[in-house]
């Protein structure tokens, strides 16, 4: 039985059973391609009646195995719903369907002077980003998805269609009612299928300038971060890369940054405000032993710099061809960041693990990209123990610890 919106083909099912993580493919039993929310709702009703698991699928660019159909079921591939609806430039909001990716939206918006700044590495579906509460390098100034989703249209497991902030509503703030929107943001596809998301937009900054600063130690780099934020500099991006990560990036992206703990910085604002921000940041980094800033002012150079950062995942993988990568994701109070990164590096060296570190230090968040040989059970076991230790230390630091790779290791 062949029809356009349904596929039983093995290749199509396999394609929809994995994302960009190391987790093995768990194909669904069937993939459906609804074209509108009414079709999503009707299909959900069918699944509900027959007790079939539902797996929403956006772009498959997740890093945490979220689309694996561990118990089989029906994968709802939402790529045919790809409209940008309802753009209100004067109100700084737009509503999009699941097939619209963040780069596609920003290309659409380019004539309006607006942009959507949340930027996880991949060109992900915006509704998928809502479901996973994506963050990115711009979060330190513009926030994550939690702060920037104003309304959602969601199809629940029984087919009912819900508007979390009211149908067609897009208030910039509200004190009324339960915050259902943020219940669904970050629910990882477990509470419903997101079919529309209303997003908060920002003005494209008048000027942007990026810089790279090398430090003699992790402590110096992270101290500079903390002090820059304390000085009230509205820094747009502040990313930490340890020496292993910088080395990997140098090799992968043909760069030649010094192989020491490094900060990648970006400043947004008017020309005058940039000068102030940069002066303050430079004073701080120099007082911590940081090198002179290596500047990237024009668009091409800046894009190359951030592409190198966004390619960190692939750069880490390239360190050991044939291996797979797990990403840990840990967030601690800023003041504890130097300590946890230093301890993590010591742990990695002691246990002979490859784990370049890259992080959104402005949020107290860092990723350890564990590169491991999946066919070496002893190494996999060492990685497992390491991630458990990491999760425990961060909990001790009494802050949010989202550690999906360890969780899924335990489950799977």
């Amino acid at each position: 039985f062949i029809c356009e919106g349904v596929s039983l083909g093995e290749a199509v099912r396999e394609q929809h059973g994995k994302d960009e993580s190391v987790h093995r493919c768990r194909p669904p039993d069937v993939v459906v391609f609804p074209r509108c929310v009414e079709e999503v709702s009707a299909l959900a009703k069918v699944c509900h009646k027959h007790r079939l698991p539902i797996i929403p699928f956006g772009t498959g660019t997740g890093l945490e195995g979220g689309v694996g159909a561990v118990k089989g079921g029906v994968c709802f591939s939402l790529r045919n719903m790809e409209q940008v609806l309802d753009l209100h430039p004067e109100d700084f909001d737009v509503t999009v369907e699941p097939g619209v990716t963040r780069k596609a939206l920003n290309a659409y918006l380019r004539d309006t002077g607006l942009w959507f700044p949340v930027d996880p590495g991949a060109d992900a579906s915006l509704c998928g980003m809502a479901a996973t509460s994506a963050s990115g390098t711009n979060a330190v100034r513009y926030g994550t998805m939690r702060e920037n989703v104003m309304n959602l249209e969601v199809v629940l497991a029984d087919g009912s269609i819900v508007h979390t902030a009211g149908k067609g509503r897009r208030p910039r703030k509200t004190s009324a009612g339960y915050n259902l929107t943020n219940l669904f943001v970050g629910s990882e596809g477990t509470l419903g299928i997101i079919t529309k998301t209303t997003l908060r937009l920002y003005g494209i900054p008048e000027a942007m300038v990026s810089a790279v600063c090398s430090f003699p130690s992790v402590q110096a780099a992270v101290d500079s971060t903390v002090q820059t934020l304390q000085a009230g500099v509205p820094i747009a991006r502040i990313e930490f890369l340890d020496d292993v990560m910088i080395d990997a990036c140098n090799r992968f992206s043909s760069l030649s940054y010094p192989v020491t703990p490094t900060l990648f910085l970006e400043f947004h604002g008017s020309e005058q405000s940039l000068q102030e921000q940069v002066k303050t940041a430079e004073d701080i980094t120099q007082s911590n032993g940081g090198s002179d800033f290596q500047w990237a002012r024009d668009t091409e150079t800046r894009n190359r710099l951030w592409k190198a950062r966004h390619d960190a995942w692939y750069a880490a993988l390239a360190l050991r061809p044939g291996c797979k990568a797990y990403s840990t994701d840990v967030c601690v109070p800023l003041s504890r960041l130097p300590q946890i990164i230093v301890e993590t590096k010591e742990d990695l060296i002691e246990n002979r693990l490859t784990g370049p570190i890259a992080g959104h230090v402005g949020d107290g968040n860092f990723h350890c990209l564990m590169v491991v040989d999946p066919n070496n059970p002893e190494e996999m076991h060492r990685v497992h123990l390491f991630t458990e230790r990491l999760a425990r230390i961060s909990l001790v630091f009494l802050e949010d610890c989202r550690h999906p790779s360890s969780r899924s290791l335990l489950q799977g």
Partner: protein
Amino acid sequence: MSGRVLVGVKRVIDYAVKIRVKPDNTGVVTDGVKHSMNPFCEIAVEEAVKLKEKKLIKEVVAVSCGPQQSQETIRTALAMGADRGIHVDVSGKDYENLGPLQVSKILAALAKQEDAQLILLGKQAIDDDCNQTGQMTAALLDWPQGTFASEVSLEGDKINLVREIDGGLEHIKINTPAVITADLRLNTPRYATLPNIMDSLMNNETELHKPNHRTSLCVGLIPLFETVAPEDMQGGTDRSGAMLRHTVLQSGKPKRIILSCLCI
């Protein structure tokens, strides 16, 4: 030397839009479809603004030929840094028949009127893919042309140009005044920022011109018979003894690439 640069900007259907053919096959659907500045024209505007920022030229004038909506395209150019706009009003049947020959006559006339030192255009428009306007304009003015430019530098009253050609890169040196058409790798266009867009809306920097019908618009018209969408893809067939590799790409639109090797 006036130090004035004319930049042609064309309003086209946005590159990300899925094009649909009208049911009566007379053209493509344009009503309610998102339009924006032709991407190669954006690159041309960026290059002109960069030259002005380097103080190598004095004024950037954005020109667009088309109906009322072309003014939006000119405003985008102003928001990117152009100083002035000229909207050449062409609408209705004249707009349907507007092609490179007509546009190049208009640009040639404007270049003389504005005493332009340089004309910067995109190498082609993404709707008709003609790649003719720059060349025709240069011929009408008897000016040198540097097409498919991936690098431009001004040296006194000459221009050093690197062109992307089939064999690789060609380095040429041409006199000014000249016509240059921009290729993809010339630069990365800046985004128009909100304050600049607001400015361009409030300041009325755009002049309206009416083209001369007889000399510009009515010559060399090319009749259009029919517009037809490409056929839907058919499935592949399995040829015994041959190797077939069937790949579905994951970029949102399924494509099938079938490679077959002859059996030995």
